[in-house]
C-alpha cells in the first residue's frame, strides 16, 4: 500500500485512534481544500484532497469499523470525491463535509 501518510500507516498509529479522531483529521484536509480553492490555488487544493482521501482510506482499512460503520465510510468517500469534482452526481458541496467532519473533531476533543 502506497499511502501518502506512510508513517501513520506503517506504525499502526492511525489504527489506534478513535473514529472521531480519524475523521476529525480527515476534516482538517477537507477544510484545506476549501481554503485553497478560495485562494484559487487548485494545486494545493488537489494535494489536500489527496491527503484527505489517503486518511479516509486508512480509516476504511481499519478493521474496527468493518461492521455497520463501513457503509457510511465508503459512501462518504464516494460523495466526497464527487463533491471535489463539482458535485454533479450527489449535489453535495464541500462545505457540507466541513460541517460533517467538524462534529467528529469536537467529539475527539471532548474525549481527550
Amino acid at each position, binding site marked *: 500500500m502506497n499511502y501518502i501518510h506512510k508513517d501513520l500507516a506503517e506504525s499502526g498509529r492511525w489504527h489506534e485512534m478513535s473514529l472521531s479522531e480519524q475523521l476529525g483529521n480527515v476534516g482538517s484536509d477537507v477544510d484545506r481544500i476549501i481554503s485553497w480553492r478560495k485562494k484559487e490555488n487548485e494545486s494545493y487544493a488537489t494535494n489536500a484532497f489527496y491527503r484527505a482521501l*489517503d486518511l479516509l482510506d486508512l480509516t476504511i482499512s481499519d478493521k474496527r469499523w468493518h461492521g455497520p460503520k463501513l457503509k457510511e465510510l465508503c459512501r462518504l468517500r464516494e460523495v466526497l470525491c464527487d463533491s471535489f469534482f463539482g458535485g454533479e452526481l450527489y449535489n453535495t458541496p464541500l462545505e457540507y463535509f466541513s460541517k460533517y467532519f467538524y462534529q467528529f473533531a469536537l467529539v475527539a476533543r471532548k474525549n481527550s
Partner: protein
Amino acid sequence: MGEARSQNERLECALSSAVERWSPKPNVVGSIPTGREFQIFLLAKMSEINLVNRSITLKELKDIASLGFGDMVKAVVDVEKRIMAIGGSMHADEEKFLLEQGASQDDLWGINIYPDSQEENRIEFDSMINVRPRQNNRSRGVESIELQKKIIEIVDLLIKE
C-alpha cells in the same frame, strides 16, 4: 409516452422474471409475502448487492438494470479474486460489500455495465471509488490500459450471453 410504456414493459418483464427467480421453494420455511408486499419484497431482493463469483447471464443483468438505473448496472470488480459485486445503488456500497468479504481496497475498481450494448461498449470505466491518487489513478476512470484489459477479461468471463 412511448418511452414511458417501454419502461413499464421492462419493469413488468423484470418483475415476472423476479417472481420466477425468487418465489419461495416448497422447502422454504416462513411466511410468504403476498400482493403489493410481495412486489416490494421482490424489488428489495432485486436491488440487493449480489456477489458474482461464477457467472451471471445477460438476461439477469438486464432484469437488475430494469429495476434500478434502467440501462445499466453498477459493479465493482475485484481484480485479484476475479469476482464482482453488482446491484448496489452506489459503487461505495459494493466496495463495502467486497471489503467485508476480505478484499483489499487497492484491487477494487468501479465500472458500469450496459447489458443491452454491444460487447465493445458494454463496460464503462467511471466511478468515484476509482479516484485513488496513491495508486496513480487520479480520475473516475481506470487510467491504466493494462488494468482496463484485466477488468474486461474478468467481466467477460463472468457474464454469459
